[in-house]
């Protein structure tokens, strides 16, 4: 495993609290929206492991929660940089390696907001949609190369991310925010990170070798409504 995060504290915690001490892993504290830093950790990965078989891109922010006409250009640029530029920069460096290997699987974490709109989430919906546009196009360019590119589109997931959204919706009573979001979800609960992980594992495996250019939805019926 090669584990990259811009949050040093969380990365250290992952190393010390969650993963077995003997796991063979590289940890990079880096900004994956920074071109030079991306190049550096991809190069180091190649030096150390010799290739990249699976690339899973989870970096992203929801941004603030407000009406579409209330964003500033600066906020739009920050979201673009974090959610889209990072996808592009990592793919740019990882794709040629996988192409040379004639093997590899890229998974981009988008969200159900990539397939529908939700009031007050225009920025997140916009960048999520953009990820699918990039994924589909890159998939068509690589259809014969042995490299597969797909996206995962989960419903809101139990995470600090969603806690922020709950707070943003009802600053004085985040519990109300949670209830409001749950009411959108047919099962009335968030997805769990472990449930996303199973899908990521499946789609990145050889068992999914004809699955390419698709969005794998994990939403408990959210989009069926």
């Amino acid at each position, binding site marked *: 495993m090669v584990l990259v995060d811009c949050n040093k504290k969380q990365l250290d915690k992952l190393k010390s609290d969650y993963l077995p001490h003997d796991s063979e892993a590289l940890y990079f504290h880096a900004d994956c929206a920074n071109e030079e830093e991306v190049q550096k950790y991809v190069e180091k990965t190649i030096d150390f492991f010799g290739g990249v078989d699976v690339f899973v891109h989870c970096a992203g922010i929801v941004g603030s929660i407000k009406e579409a006409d209330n964003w500033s250009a600066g906020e739009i640029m920050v979201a673009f940089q974090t959610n889209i530029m990072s996808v592009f920069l990592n793919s740019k460096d990882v794709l040629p390696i996988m192409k040379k290997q004639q093997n590899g699987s890229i998974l981009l974490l988008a969200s159900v907001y990539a397939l529908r709109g939700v009031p007050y989430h225009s920025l997140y919906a916009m960048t999520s949609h953009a990820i699918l546009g990039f994924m*589909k196009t890159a998939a068509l360019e690589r259809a014969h190369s042995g490299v597969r590119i797909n996206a995962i589109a989960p419903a809101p997931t139990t995470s600090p991310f969603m806690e922020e959204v709950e707070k943003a919706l009802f600053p004085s009573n985040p519990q109300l925010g949670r209830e409001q979001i749950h009411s959108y979800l047919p099962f009335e609960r968030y997805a769990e990170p472990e449930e996303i992980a199973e899908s990521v594992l499946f789609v990145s495996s050889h*068992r999914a070798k*004809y699955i390419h250019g*698709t969005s794998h939805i994990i939403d*408990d*019926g959210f989009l069926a409504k």
Partner: protein
Amino acid sequence: MEFQDKVVMITGAAGVLGTALSKRFQKEGALLVLIDKDKEKLDQLAKQLPNGSDSIFIPADCRDDEQVKLYVDKTVDLLGTIDVLINCVGIYGPITQASDISSHYMMDVYETNVVTSFLNYKYAVPVMQKRRSGCILFVSAVFGLRGLPFFSAYSTVSHALLGFMKSAALDCVTSGVRVNAVVPAPMKSTMMEEVEEILYPDNPIRGREQILGLLPMGRYLEADEVTESVLFLASDRARYITGTSHIIDGGMTAK
């Protein structure tokens, strides 16, 4: 073995996909209930399955309300429940311009692809809901998400199946039953060989080239590649996945 002693019912079991699914689920320890209207082919399938004697084979027409009810009841009598239902019955129907299709043929495709899925769902879902657990899978096609010249009948019913699947999934959300569809690209099968021939009766290889030209990976999907997705969706690993269309198309719908 992920499906040890789980009761898995497969309709259209003697077809290319049904056969691949039967073998794969048996490998995972499932108790199989295999339905097909072609008794001869069903007998052949029985010989192909390593542990054929552990499975129940029922020749029946899934378009017939009474027959469906009968084999669902029989399954519950014998095995107690149904954990997974996979609907594989389907035909391409007439391959011609939309305006040339007779209403008789349109009805036939509708009955074979949609009514069969509906009837199986109708009788299996109460069994699953009683135990608050179960998984139903429909096999639609990429033509349920896009159109294709000369395939209007097939495209119509493939879309219809997805509409049914989504609504049924929402009906079931509080009852512990998950409902999803797999959406495969054209699969290597006798069905596709027929299509190649219909497209170019004098030169089916041209028909094949034309269809492969639509597929970014430049080859047909293999039945084994669909079974892995079906297995995943039917398993507990996919417990938050319901009401979705699981696309297996090598990039076809990305175009």
